[in-house]
């Protein structure tokens, strides 16, 4: 005890002279770090936390709006109850949305990894293909998404016959449908689930290409950062490209798979064209703000759980080349 007191005494006494002189580098850097992230901290406390608080508050209450002011009456879990049990379509939309995402997410991950590997190879016109593949990232967002959703011109131009032709298909159409991918796969006897999965991916290829731009960028960056020396030594040791992919590329890129998995989940859950989001927006526009807020909180909790689950599963397989912190 006495020792403690002494130390404290000296600690109190010492700074009077030393305070200006020495602040350890670590502490100075820590302080600088806080200053750098300060905009976010301020924003989070001043803007974001009130938003979250208010949003949760809304989901538990009924809003009344006056001319100059507004207020809320606490109603407990009523809005959540309404969203889950009274609303006729919400649960169904939620379940079907989750099911379709369970299909889409692996497809997007595999596709973007595949395309990133393709784009990483030396070939003619690589720069052109790269810039084409990244077009959807910058152009097919926001308003363009809703324009594309309402674009009946696209399918009209696609169709082989006129729009008001009720006869049921021309010869070219029949030819195409007889060579249909579904038929091809069905004849291969590989099980209907796989067939429907693959055909749904092929049918949905536009959506998948559109949504895998950022993931492709991240994978490409991961691939670029693998040292060529590793590949070279692999080649010298006589590994085939297949082995090289699974023993080198895949482990080295696994942190990116984690990042992309999480990002894809977040991105596809929160995009405006997501069916659940569309439904929530419809409810919001219909005037049931409180219920729509409750719905999106339910949705958010599910997303959180999924993200946590995926992060936990993936991070078990992630390989880090070196850990610096």
């Amino acid at each position, binding site marked *: 005890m006495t020792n403690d007191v002494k130390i404290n005494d000296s600690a109190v006494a010492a700074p009077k002279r030393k305070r200006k002189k020495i602040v350890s580098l670590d502490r100075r850097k820590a302080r600088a770090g806080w200053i750098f992230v300060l905009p976010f901290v301020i924003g989070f406390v001043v803007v974001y936390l009130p938003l979250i608080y208010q949003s949760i508050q809304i989901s538990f209450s009924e809003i009344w709006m006056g001319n100059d002011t507004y207020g809320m009456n606490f109603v407990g879990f009523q809005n959540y109850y309404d969203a889950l049990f009274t609303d006729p379509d919400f649960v169904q939309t939620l379940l079907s949305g989750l099911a379709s995402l369970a299909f889409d997410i692996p497809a997007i991950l595999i596709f973007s990894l595949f395309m990133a590997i393709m784009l990483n190879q030396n070939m003619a016109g690589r720069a052109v293909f790269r810039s084409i593949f990244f077009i959807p*990232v910058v152009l097919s967002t926001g308003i363009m998404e809703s324009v594309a959703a309402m674009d009946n011109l696209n399918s009209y131009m696609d169709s082989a016959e006129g729009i008001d032709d009720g006869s049921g298909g021309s010869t070219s159409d029949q030819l195409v449908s007889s060579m249909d991918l579904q038929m091809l796969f069905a004849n291969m006897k590989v099980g209907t689930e796989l067939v429907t999965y693959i055909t749904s991916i092929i049918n949905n290829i536009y959506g998948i290409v*559109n949504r895998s731009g950022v993931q492709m960028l991240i994978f490409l960056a991961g691939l670029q950062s693998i040292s060529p020396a590793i590949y070279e030594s692999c080649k010298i040791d006589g590994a085939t490209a297949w082995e090289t992919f699974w023993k080198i590329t895949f482990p080295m890129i696994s942190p990116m798979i984690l990042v992309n998995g999480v990002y894809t989940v977040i991105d596809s859950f929160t995009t405006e064209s997501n069916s659940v989001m569309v439904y929530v927006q419809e409810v919001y526009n219909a005037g049931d703000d409180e219920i729509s807020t409750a719905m999106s909180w339910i949705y958010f909790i599910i997303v959180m759980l999924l993200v946590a689950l995926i992060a936990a599963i993936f991070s078990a397989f992630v390989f880090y080349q070196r850990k610096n912190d």
Partner: protein
Amino acid sequence: MNAQNTEKIVALNQKPKKEKKSKKDNRPLHEQYDQLPLKERLKAKFLSFYFLQKVVLWIFRMVLMIGISYIVIYPFITKIAGSIMAPEDFLDITVRLIPKHFSLDIYRAVLTEMNFFSALGNTFMLSFSTAILQTLTCCLIGYGFAKFKFRGRNILFLLVMLTMIIPHQTLQHAMYLQFRNFDILGIVKFLNGGGIEFFGWNVKELGEGVKTFFEGIDILPDEIPLWYEIEEEQVALQIKQTGINIANTYAPLIILSITGLAFKNGLYVFLLRQFFRGIPDELEESAYMDGCGTFRTFVQIILPLSIPMMVTVFLFAFCWQWTDDFYITLINTGSAKSSDLLVKLVGKIPESLQITVSSDPSGLYSTSIRNTIALLIIAPLVVLYAFCQNFLVQGIEHSGIAN
């Protein structure tokens, strides 16, 4: 896949050559090859399994790449084709992608009748300012997370990710209320006589005296005049007891941008953090040795190095703000001149085309008008992308994300 096959074939090709070598002479292989007759050499080169495989792979890859490029570009092609068609082309079932009656009526109508250019100017102002602010803020935040160790760093970074995970639709009603009654930690409310409130409990409830005291504080004006006028009338921000009404200005988006809370800013912070991590610490250490402070090091050493990544983030922020309709419809609903934005034009029909649209049974012509407006909206982005796409790839390539 390609490399795998080539290696197999190299292995295959080497076997017979080795046998030859042992039978005939000990000269190096390429010398032997050089002395073969031309016919034999061509045969060896083009009739080999190796060459065939290479060609097949090349064709396969090209077909795949061109096919996917086609999928990406096709919607734009149909939009362009539709936008230059005359109305009668939509009734003619033989017309598909190539118009019979070429016409620029839609473009003319949209550009002259819809105050397109003032909307373009406003959208540019908004997108440019928010994108610049977002880039700078995310650089600061990303650098803070990348290079400094401080207590609570990981939790803070999780919070950054959280702002990205919570869909902004969840917060849309809260945002609607918040930006119509904007208040920083209750300061406006306090200064306007609203008292101090914690989680629904107000200080005023303590007693009459306290209530009259707090209501006596009323030092804010009812309105703050702004610098522009609409139809001869001064525009002003209203100050209510619940806060300032900043909807219908750019302020909400600017506030979100400055604090790194705008659309997908979590992603930018993540990308920039990874980029800064890839920059060796020695650079900064030598700058510190030379007497630079942390901030000066950041501005003079780090930022010039990270221009490709900053351009990438700027491009994303700019384009995503340019085409954003969620925030615009949520916040900028008013008729003020400044809320005349490009995305609001979508779905409107120019007056001179109204008759044609109403006489079109299939609805294709109105779709075509909407598509044309969309094309005009993204035209500046295409130009920007053409200039920046090199940076985009560069920035990503040098980011060393896997570390």
